[in-house]
């Protein structure tokens, strides 16, 4: 069982992701934007982060960027879940240290497998 921080501003997307992870016996910590996620990260020390890209207050990229300089975020697998596939976005994600990205719509099996692979 892993503790996973799931971040998405869309409640339905967040539910879907959380249900998928909980269904496989993982513990899920939820946050609805980057800023909240940063707090949860400090409080709960998750094993992995899956975050949406476009969110109010603080988006996924800024969140990962900020998280990398937190003790709890060093060497933590952090995935971006996004519909964006443009190369410059991937370039930027790489630069700030995102572990990788998942394309929406996500495949639950793939997500669970990635948790096994990374967390």
């Amino acid at each position, binding site marked *: 069982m892993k503790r996973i921080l799931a971040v998405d501003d869309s409640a339905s997307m967040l539910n879907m992701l959380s249900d998928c992870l909980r269904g496989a016996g993982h513990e899920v910590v939820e946050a609805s934007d980057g800023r909240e996620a940063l707090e949860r990260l400090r409080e709960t020390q998750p094993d992995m982060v899956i975050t949406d890209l476009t969110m*109010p207050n603080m988006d996924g990229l800024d969140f990962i960027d900020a998280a990398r300089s937190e003790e709890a975020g060093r060497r933590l*697998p952090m995935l971006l879940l996004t519909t964006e*596939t443009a190369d410059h976005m*991937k370039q930027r994600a790489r630069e700030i*240290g995102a572990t*990788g990205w998942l394309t929406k*719509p*996500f495949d639950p099996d793939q997500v669970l497998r990635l948790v096994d*692979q990374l967390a």
Partner: protein
Amino acid sequence: MDDDEDYQALFFAECVELLGDLQEQLDKLAAGDSDPETVNAAFRAVHSVKGGAAAFGFEGLIGFAHIFETVMDKVRNGARETDGELSALLIRAGDVLMALVEQARDGGEADAAMVERVTAELHQVAEGGSPPEAAEITARAENSDDLEGTNEPTGERGVTVTLTPHLGFLRVGHEPLRLVRAAKALGLVGVEALGEVPLPQAIDLGNSPLSWKLQFESAASIAEFYSFFEIYEAFADVKIEAEAMLEAEEDEPQPSAEPRPDPSDANDQTAPVAPISAQASFGSDTARAKIAKTLRVELSRIDRLVNLVGEVVITQAVLAQRLSEIDANGHLELDHAVESMSRQTRELQESVMAIRAQPVKSVFSRMPRVVRDLADKLGKEARLIVSGEQTEVDTTVIEELAEPLTHMLRNSMDHGLEETSADREAAGKRPVGTLRLSAEHRGERVLITVEDDGRGIDRERVLQKAVDNGLVEDPEAIAPEEIDNLIFHPGFSTAESVSAVSGRGVGMDVVKKKIQMLGGRCTLRNTPGQGTRFVITLPLTLAVLDGMIVSVGDERFILPLSSVVEAIRIDPETLAILPNGSRVMRLRGDYLPLISLREALQLDGNARPEEMAMVVDDEAQGPVAIIVDELIGQRQVVLKSLEANFRRVEGISGATILGDGRVALILDVSSLLEMSTSAPSQGLLEAVG
């Protein structure tokens, strides 16, 4: 799983869009378009289809999309010139991709021979050759027994994956031990570290010094390997090499053989993923055929439908009216029928309008970029907070919104926010400026707000400018809110020198005009020192509205129901005349400004006094009473543009045809209030109270 199906439906809907776009770009390429963006767009389309296919495990699709993408990539980075031959191949490849997507969605079978031929041709190009002649392909296909990767996986085979981490591989959270553990599920039988073990002092915890060679004995498809290792590719080179099936059936040549890409191809660092026979891999997907489909329809067809439904609504109203005139008692069944028809008409109308509704997200999502670019250009720090993106509005409205919104944000960035972070800090604000863009439904309207926390509108400067430009004659007689509204005046621009960002002759008047064209209103609230808020209110649809029918003399008018708060029979004792001659009405302790529709529109007055007061709520002025002769009733009416058929009239937003066949004008409440001068200032009201 239902969710899964939803997602698949979404994926296929996306595919249809992507492929339509692809076709368009490829046609442009074939026509000799050399714009790099054309190639890029085509590449992205193929790439996105591949990404989705990988998520759902449509293996034939992944394989084909991959080789297609490889070729597009070569075209994109200039490694391969586009000539007539290649463009023709790319267009064929687009067709095949489409066929494979349809096959994945609907089951059925793509033309296997075609898939096979185009795949082979693409491989040929990927390896650096020209598209081969058709005869050559046929020969290849016949002689395909020695080729691999196309047979139904019937047994295990050896797969070797070489993973060479880049700098930062460990720093972003990858952990080779976890990888190895997870890879066991895929049939990992051995791991070998390649390269030299670095001296202890050279070990950097952030970087992994080695390459890993992973040996698999696996029945898993190449697509599964591809999918497993995709996540590492951002920070590692991954090379997947598959041996031939250990127990492949030799006797039956499979339909989609293709040459194996040369492993020495230096440009292709990732796996030379072997396309898998469409037939073989899609067998199990036929069960997924029952999914929701989306359909792209030309807007003009929907518009015709909307218009027709509008006519039906009118006819229905006429019918109901006539029926009530013929026979007031009896014919109960007929009454019922008309009743249901009116309900169904309304549902029909709502359904049609729902087709046109779209979330504002498509426009809102472009705005953060606008703000970012402006921030760079102006050297200001700002962030944009967007909310309510899912709010749905009529398609036409959405398309027209981009320009005014961009302009408003530009205005806020340029004029609203303080020049420097230091200025902001001096004013006790956070150094980074905040802009907010939000949308919400309010009744039958949509509210869109653009807000900044800057310095607000400098009234002194605006007024000075207005006086200089001759817009204002007597600067003493103008209320603060009126000063604010001067920025909507045509040609007004407060920028002292024409700035590179705003200025340039396009002012807020253009925004206002655009919004009015959409049947909306634009108001602003200025709090000097604290910021400016623009509020746009738009009708949900441009075709129908719920209205109250009122009469003045022989004329009928429609007041939009959304602006009516209540209707009151006038009690003469509650009326009062202020010293300046304007009238007010007392209502539960408040004094409401009074507007006579008869006077405002200069209708012929028969001396009969007005009996009804319609209380309307206006964002700018608060509640106002509009007095009319009679309230006739509530009705849904179909908007007909007065401008298109006649000309624009102040105070009137359109016209409609009533049940009795008469034309009634639809009142534009806010412009009516603006026209009317009877609204007294606050001070006078207090004097009366």
